[in-house]
């Protein structure tokens, strides 16, 4: 009996430990003040945010937009799904421009896209970014000679600027402050702000030839290192997306039969121009630019007269190739979109909701705890312990599963408190009856749990079934409610039955304990 209890205690302790570790991220996340945020390293804050309990847009404020393909304006021969995927790629390409920490962009149904922008959002700007027509351009990358000259000019100006700015040992300033930020055409994410500052200097702008512009890729990641690629290109585009008919990902290149490639088909009227461009620029790179963001810069190998080009992508996987094909198609024919749903909650209202609902929940819980302690005395305390543990495990599981806590979710926690109490009440009422019927304490506990279990199971199953139905019905906030309810019920079996039984068994197994306060 004793050893048996020991094992059970181990299980509970391990569960507690894991939950505590999981919740520590949430606690740390909420204790970071805006001032602290500035001093802490970004990767540390991000790591904590990632593992902490996520709050829904209704609690933290933000914008939720659903757009869908306007089927009436959809050109023939293009499925809504394909058009949607093109639009999705375009919006992902512009993701940086939203200016929020964790934008979420996801497919919804056949032809919809859901965009979630947490925090303070400039609504008009966000809608503009989403709705803007895509512009795909092909731009010639500068020749190596010109590149070198431009970079040298920029470095000279930036060096002078840094000398003027410096209030420290000027010998520490590199001779090439601009170029030193670039390694193999890459700029690390943390260097981007400095680079942007340099490029925004009037003196720097003046040494860059007027027909040249500097472009960046999307933020990429390799071996945990985040970076952007930098391209110096001719400002004038040689061709736009209108010249394209189609772009498809295919497998197999002349060098590697399993490597992905992208096949491009030009419109007949663009073929001659394309032949001219490629013919004149053999061995030069042509950057594919969507909405001002460089996607790829394949090197021209030969003059292409047929209009059918092949882009080899050394080192890329099929996903990269598929994305590029999608972007090329998107640029060829932007999908007609319409906003079908939009919900914005101001950050003031969101934090107001968190504060009030949180306070209400805590107050309600305290009332319940007091009631249980008075009504069931010693056993009431055990039940209270179970209620608190239930909320604790519930929150830990929510954050561990990456679920989102919404305002209705808080109502779900409130209901779970009721469910948790209910299970214990059912058990205690049964134990009381068994005691009144003359059973010994331990026999009464055994019988009470045994007889109440089936009822508790049934009672919880109906709620669980309804929660599952709700999960499929609901969007955002309501889904949050369903998730809380389901997980809470599962936790309830562990806390209200397993843990309370363990505690009662432990107490009554001690020598000298003959009665329990119930």
């Amino acid at each position: 009996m004793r050893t048996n209890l020991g094992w059970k205690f181990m299980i509970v302790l391990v569960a507690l430990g894991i939950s505590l570790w999981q919740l520590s991220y949430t606690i740390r996340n909420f204790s970071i003040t805006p001032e602290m945020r500035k001093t802490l390293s970004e990767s540390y804050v991000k790591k904590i945010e990632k593992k902490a309990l996520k709050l829904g847009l209704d609690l933290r404020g933000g914008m939720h937009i659903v757009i869908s393909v306007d089927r009436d304006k959809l050109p023939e021969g293009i499925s809504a799904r394909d058009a949607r995927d093109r639009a999705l790629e375009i919006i992902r390409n512009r993701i940086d421009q939203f200016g929020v920490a964790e934008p979420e962009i996801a497919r919804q149904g056949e032809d919809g896209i859901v965009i979630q922008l947490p925090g303070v959002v400039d609504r008009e700007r966000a809608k503009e970014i989403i709705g803007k027509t895509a512009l795909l351009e092909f731009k010639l990358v500068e020749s190596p000679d010109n590149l070198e000259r431009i970079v040298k000019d920029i470095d000279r100006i930036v060096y002078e600027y840094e000398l003027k700015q410096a209030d420290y040992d000027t010998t520490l300033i590199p001779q090439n402050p601009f170029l030193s930020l670039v390694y193999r055409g890459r700029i690390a994410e943390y260097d981007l702000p400095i680079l942007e500052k340099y490029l925004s200097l009037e003196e720097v702008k003046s040494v860059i030839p007027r027909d040249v512009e500097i472009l960046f890729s999307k933020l990429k990641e390799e071996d945990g290192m985040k970076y952007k690629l930098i391209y110096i290109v001719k400002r004038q585009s040689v061709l736009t997306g209108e010249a394209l008919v189609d772009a498809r990902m295919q497998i197999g290149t002349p060098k590697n039969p399993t490597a992905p490639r992208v096949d491009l088909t030009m419109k007949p009227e663009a073929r001659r121009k394309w032949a001219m461009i490629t013919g004149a620029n053999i061995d030069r790179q042509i950057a594919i630019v969507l909405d001002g963001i460089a996607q790829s810069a394949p090197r021209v190998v030969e003059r292409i007269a047929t209009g059918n080009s092949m882009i080899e992508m050394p080192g890329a996987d099929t996903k990269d190739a598929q994305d590029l094909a999608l972007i090329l198609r998107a640029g060829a024919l932007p999908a007609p979109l319409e906003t079908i749903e939009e919900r914005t909650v101001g950050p003031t209202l969101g934090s107001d909701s968190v504060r009030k609902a949180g306070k209400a929940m805590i107050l309600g819980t305290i009332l319940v705890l007091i009631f249980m302690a008075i009504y069931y005395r010693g056993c009431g305390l055990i039940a209270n312990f179970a209620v608190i543990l239930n909320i604790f495990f519930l929150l830990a599981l929510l954050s561990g599963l990456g679920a989102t806590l919404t305002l209705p979710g808080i109502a779900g926690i409130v209901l779970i408190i009721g469910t948790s109490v209910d299970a214990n009440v059912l058990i205690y009422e049964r134990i009381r009856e068994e005691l009144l019927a003359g059973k010994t304490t331990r026999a009464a506990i055994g019988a009470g749990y045994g007889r109440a279990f089936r009822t508790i199971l049934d009672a919880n199953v109906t709620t669980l079934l309804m929660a599952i139905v709700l999960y499929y019905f609901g969007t955002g906030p309501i889904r949050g409610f369903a998730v809380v309810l389901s997980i809470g019920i599962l936790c309830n079996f562990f806390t209200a039955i397993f843990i309370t039984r363990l505690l009662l068994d432990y107490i009554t197994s001690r020598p000298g304990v003959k009665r329990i306060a119930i």
Partner: protein
Amino acid sequence: MVSLFGKTNINFIDFRRKGFIISLALLVVGIISVATQSGLNYGLDFTGGSFVEVHFNEDVDIGSIRSVISDVGLGDAVIQRVKEADYNYMIRTRLTEYEGKSMGTVLNKVLNEKFSDNGVRIEREEMVGPVISRALQAKAIWVVLLGMVIILIYVSVRFTYRFGIASVIALFHDVLITIGILSLARAEFSSATIAALLTIIGYSINDSIVLSDRVKDNLKKERGKRSFSEIINASVNQNLARTVNTSLTTLFVLLALYLLGGRMIRDFALALLIGVIIGTYSSIVIVAGLVVEWERRLPVYSHKAGGR
């Protein structure tokens, strides 16, 4: 040992007729309320349109807001003051956009022009297009039907025939009365209300299960010793502590949420609150009452037991 219900013996069965009348009255009141308000107060989810909550630093009157927005053709908008927040107004329109711009943008512009220096700010904006609102309407109907079917299957497996039927009647009773009272309170009927109703369905069945389990136990033990209605009444009384304690604790927290939880959650908390109260009442009065009534008219138990 504190025990409020140690040896209660309240005669619920004799109360059943009065109970039926009360329930009927509540139902009628609900129906009248829904009818006189020409339907439920559907939320944006189901009607479509736009909803904008505007904040002002100093109070303005509804008339002046209306006159400003009439100029952009929104004269028929519904404007309401938000009671809990200082100087917030809700403006609801049927249109989803105006000249290609969202309502929030339009209202922000015109109201800022008229009430400059009044800190006009859009606190919340919702727009639900016709595609979504139609989809949500269909979904709401499906989800309620699906919930019902699942409960019916569950009930047919888990309950005896008569208890099953009585529980399902009680379930309709709970849902309809909750809707009626929500209509009286002029609460909004939204997706969240559907969520609350489904939760209430789960709770209502849960209460009936506990009672039915107890009755089964008692019927086994006491067959022939006591009349059917006595056994039912004893079962209700034995369960009373559990039923009341559970409902009370749930009500504590829900009431706290309703009163202090802020306006965004109020209607949801209200729906759950009403549902829990009605659900508790119906498991005691309606389910038990119906089963007894049925037995009186078409005795099954008494025959087997050899009469009363």
